[in-house]
């Protein structure tokens, strides 16, 4: 036993020996690489607008980053929180409903054959329908615009969570070696479920939750077509209707930013629930 307890405890013992010394090139620093990627993105965009690039794709009418920045400044000096707060509430409420429903139904469908037969066919039928197609029905079905909007964001989050949960449960059940550990102890189905199936399907459920979070934001503009006054998606849609282009791009970026941030929070939070997993990528130190 050459490996001692102390160095195994701190991550993988192999990483330590393979660790590279400080690289003289700035590009080796991951934060610098990431910042550079963003700078390049905005730089190229600015350049394309400034030169009036028009080769099949036309940038002449596209607002430049500087114009978008100006619109953003205006938006934030006015009263931005009302919009951000109402969008955030819609997305979070829709996401909360969708993910709890998706996990519960997904587990039932994955674990019981009867639930699979009874629930999956209609759900599979509804799954390919895009959120925008739900707008007329959302208006007809729900008592007010607010609940209709929550419904449309939840549509986006629900299916990834559902399908990932079903797949996660099924793939754990297909791992006969793990299931046998419980069976040979005479474990009841409930214990096999609790101790083996639930933790075993967590990685899959977690990825469903992360994708679902992104999808909820994805559906926000669609949902806020129903909105009367407030919301980041509403501003985006409204600016399009009034042909005011810089705020559209600002709204797009703002949604992208909030979506990315909340997906990151979800993936961090679910990662913290699975301390047994260590992810080591190609080229990572």
């Amino acid at each position, binding site marked *: *036993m050459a*490996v*001692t*307890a102390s160095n*195994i*405890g701190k991550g*993988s013992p192999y990483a330590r020996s393979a660790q590279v010394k400080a690289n003289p090139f700035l590009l080796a620093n991951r934060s610098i690489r990431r910042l550079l990627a963003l700078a390049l993105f905005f730089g190229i965009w600015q350049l394309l607008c400034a030169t009036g690039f028009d080769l099949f794709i036309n940038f002449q009418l596209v607002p430049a980053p500087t114009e978008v920045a100006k619109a953003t400044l205006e938006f934030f000096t006015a009263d931005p929180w009302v919009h951000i707060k109402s969008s955030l509430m819609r997305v979070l409420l829709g996401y909360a409903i969708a993910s709890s429903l998706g996990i519960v139904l997904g587990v039932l469908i994955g674990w019981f054959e009867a639930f699979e037969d009874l629930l999956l066919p209609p759900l599979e039928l509804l799954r390919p329908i895009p959120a925008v197609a739900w707008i007329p029905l959302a208006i007809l079905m729900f008592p007010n615009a607010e609940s209709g909007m929550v419904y449309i964001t939840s549509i986006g989050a629900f299916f990834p969570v559902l399908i990932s949960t079903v797949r996660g449960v099924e793939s754990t059940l297909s791992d006969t*070696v*793990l299931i*046998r*550990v*419980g*069976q*040979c*102890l*005479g*474990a009841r189905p409930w*214990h096999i479920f609790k*101790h*083996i199936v639930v*933790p*075993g399907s*967590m990685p899959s459920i977690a990825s469903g939750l992360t994708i679902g979070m992104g999808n909820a934001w994805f559906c926000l503009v669609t949902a806020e077509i129903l909105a009367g006054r407030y919301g980041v998606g509403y501003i985006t849609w409204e600016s399009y209707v009034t042909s005011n282009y810089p705020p559209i791009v600002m709204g797009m970026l703002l949604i992208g930013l909030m979506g990315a941030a909340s997906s990151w929070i979800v993936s961090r939070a679910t990662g913290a629930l*699975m*301390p*047994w997993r*260590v992810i080591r990528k190609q080229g990572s130190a």
Partner: protein
Amino acid sequence: MTEQLSLATSPQVETAAVLEFRDVGLQYRMSGRPMPVIEHISLSVGEAEFVSIVGPSGCGKTSLLRMISGLNPVGKGQVCFRGEPITKPLSSVGIAFQNPVLLPWRTTLQNVLLPLEVVPTHRRQLKNQRSRYETMAQDLLATVGLEDFQHHYPRQLSGGMKQRASLCRALIHQPELLLLDEPFAALDAFTREEMWELLQRLWARSQCTSVLVTHNLREAIFLSDTVYVMGPRPSQMVYTLKVDLPRPRTLDMCFTEDFHQMYTELRQHIQRK
């Protein structure tokens, strides 16, 4: 080494059988046709006896073990545990598999505690006496040299460590019967021999009736009171060897004349078609 001689020296074989095979047979369906795997196997295992089953590949050794575990139904005949036919998995049985299947999301200690969280009699007590049970598991881990690794996840353990943890898990709920399905097959030769001594210690401590399925004849002789040899398919028991080496056995004994003679004897019976 002959049957008469060893029967005289190991009296436990004559006490009431813990485990009994009564004319057991098994057949699988292979592309629609029935294929007999095991035929007419009768044997009995006494209290605290250590029994090994050896035989050529595919002779149905593991099937035999699965029948005891209750995971596979018995084809013909009966497999009885303390006189009762086995029809479902028993909680008084501990199993260690060929690959040590530890749950990846549990630490070593949590893996060892799993049977206590699942087996009904212990489950009720675990809630009130968690610390007592944890101490019990920690003691067991200490006897196999894993005391410093109880809070590590399986991916942080070597193959030998995993198998030691898996033996602890098989023994933590103080089973009356320990089933070992080629538990050391994936280990290197030196680790494997260490595990023999370790298993002997654990067995002596727990006084648990044990059935080991293995391909390794030295392992079978080293650990067992009785070695059963199965023939090629459809298998029957073709030979029984009583091992009367004194206990505790040491690895040095593997190089004695007696040991070698038993090894040759087993080897010959395995080759016979």
